[in-house]
């Protein structure tokens, strides 16, 4: 009963090209910026879009095979699709929205089934309300009830939380999480927010311009982003430069805006060539970076070797308290951000325009081939 998809489809400015497989009970979260082609994947699975080439298979049933001319219309695929804005039929009550997908039995029986489904989501009392009378969270639950009441063979969720405001999102996330655990069918969820993907997905796949650039457990993807794009999406800071080999197996990266950093990662093998300069992206997290007065750690590189540290001269461009931490915007030729504690700021007497040294460990520095594939 697992869902398998393999599709190629030309979009406006790039070609979608994905292959994925989702096991029953698994929730694959597709995360990426808007316009990356995530929703197109859902539409292909549901049969709302016929890709230029590809196959879709759910368990033993072939839903689509462009080569063999098979293309089941959406009404024969039995996917539970939750649309981004829920797409509740505006002229039908909540109960009739849910009953719309039911077949067989009398009208009264279908209504009973629909109301039971609404009750499972805690909104049985709203059965006769029209969608426009419902709040965002209530609409979401009607949409979930409508999608699962037909016992779908796959669940497809398109940004199911985006239309909600921050206050109802927590509860809605919980309702969605329970739903995914209860229904033992393959599920695909689409979101532009990595935190959302990590919360709801058992697996996360990062989509960029129509391709899956990394796939794995949420924590793993966040900890070891395979490309600068993924690092950016998960919240790291990114500098660009050119890498070459240094002593002790370290990589030495000359940054584009000036300065040099070391990493315990090896130099990426660019196209098979060995040690020539390779254009790379260097990433680390803002909380790895510490700030020091200029002169406390002179020069660019200190203690190369054992506990190799990177140090860059920087100008402070912004100081922003975020809760108990302070985010300090830095200009090192390229923009950089550090997260330090309030007392640290006070001790340094830091102000916008000050010169400081930003330091972090070589071991907390990832080097990524700017072409895109991981080297870690």
């Amino acid at each position, binding site marked *: 009963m697992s869902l398998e998809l393999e599709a190629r489809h030309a979009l406006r400015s790039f070609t979608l090209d994905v292959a994925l497989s989702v096991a029953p009970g698994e929730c694959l979260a597709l995360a990426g910026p808007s316009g990356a082609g995530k929703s197109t994947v859902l539409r292909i699975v549901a049969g709302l879009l016929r890709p230029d080439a590809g196959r879709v298979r759910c368990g033993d049933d072939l839903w689509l095979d462009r080569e063999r001319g098979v293309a089941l219309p959406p009404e024969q695929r039995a996917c539970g699709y939750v649309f981004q804005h829920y797409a509740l039929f*505006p002229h039908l009550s909540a109960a009739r929205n849910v009953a719309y997908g039911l077949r067989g039995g009398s009208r009264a029986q279908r209504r009973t089934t629909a109301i039971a489904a609404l009750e499972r989501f805690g909104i049985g009392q709203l059965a006769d309300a029209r969608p426009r009378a419902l709040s965002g969270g209530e609409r979401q639950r009607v949409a979930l009830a409508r999608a699962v009441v037909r016992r779908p063979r796959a669940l497809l969720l398109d940004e199911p939380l985006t239309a909600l405001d921050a206050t109802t999102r927590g509860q809605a996330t919980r309702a969605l999480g329970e739903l995914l655990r209860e229904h033992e069918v393959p599920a695909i969820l689409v979101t532009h927010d990595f935190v959302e993907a990590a919360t709801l997905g058992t697996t996360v796949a990062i989509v960029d311009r129509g391709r899956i650039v990394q796939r794995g457990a949420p924590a793993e993807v966040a900890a070891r982003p395979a490309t600068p794009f993924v690092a950016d999406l998960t919240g790291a800071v990114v500098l660009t430069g050119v890498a070459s080999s240094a002593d002790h197996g370290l990589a030495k990266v000359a940054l584009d805006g000036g300065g040099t950093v070391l990493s315990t990662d090896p130099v990426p093998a660019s196209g098979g060539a060995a040690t020539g300069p390779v254009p790379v992206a260097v990433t680390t997290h803002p909380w790895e970076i510490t700030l020091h007065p200029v002169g406390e750690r002179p020069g660019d590189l200190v203690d190369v070797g054992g506990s190799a540290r990177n140090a860059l001269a920087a100008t402070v461009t912004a100081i922003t308290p975020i809760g108990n931490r302070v985010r300090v915007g830095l200009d090192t030729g390229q923009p950089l951000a550090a997260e330090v504690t309030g007392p640290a700021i006070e001790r340094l007497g830091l102000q916008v325009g000050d010169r400081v040294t930003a330091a972090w460990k070589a071991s907390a520095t990832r080097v990524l081939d700017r072409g895109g594939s991981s080297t870690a």
Partner: protein
Amino acid sequence: MTARRVAFSAALVVALTVCVAFLTVPVVAIFVSSSPGDLLDGLRDPSARDALRLSLICTSIATGIIVLVGTPAAWLLATRRFRGRALVTTLVELPLVLPPAVAGIGLLAAFGPKGLVGGALGDLGLQPVLTTAGVVVALVFVAAPFYLRQAQSAFEAIDRDWLDASRTLGAGELRTWLLIAIPVARGGLVTGLALAWGRALGEFGATLMFAGSFRGVTQTVPLAIYERFASDFDGALALSAVLVALSAAVLLTVKLLGSGSPGGSENGREQRRGPGNGLGAGVGR
């Protein structure tokens, strides 16, 4: 500075007053020029009744035909992309801007005894010129584009997600059309119906030329008004008053329906900006 602002505002007010006065006076004059008694007398005239009856019958038949054929045609134009779709849309809209006298000539050239397809029709025993059927043909020709245009827009304004949701919930295209598309587009369809009905009811030039003005057979209300405006001005006023009332009813229907929510706005997205006013949606969108 302040004087200039006042002068500008005054100029605006004067312009609007001139517009409103000029456009309102003729309508007011119809009701003021004769007493209510005269109006009722005018309507008691048997030829006036014949005209009213004929107008209602022909208008109803014409709008019935328009809705039956036009609704599926509009659905196809709204939802399928095909080569030449823009051309088809333009062709269907052309009668909207065609002068009625030209429409009359065109109908004669097409369906008249010596017309393009008129000969073939005659061989089948169908000859619409100067008959009640001819009135219906003329009304359908001038009124259909109003309904088609409006229905196409109403179908196009439906949030595609609703149609997609219906499909993923197991409904085929026919079922989706009947259970989702038509109910959701209902406001726009009724607006189009009202506009087509109003245009057919007031049709004058094309009917006059294609079907003539024979009492009881082809003389609709506008033709009856024309026939008697020189000889029996009060009778013409009475019939005009009836048409003004019906036109106002059409206008209000369109405005009330048009000010309701359009198809796409309830789905949590940003409300369409611009005039909520209905005639806009009405006449052409």
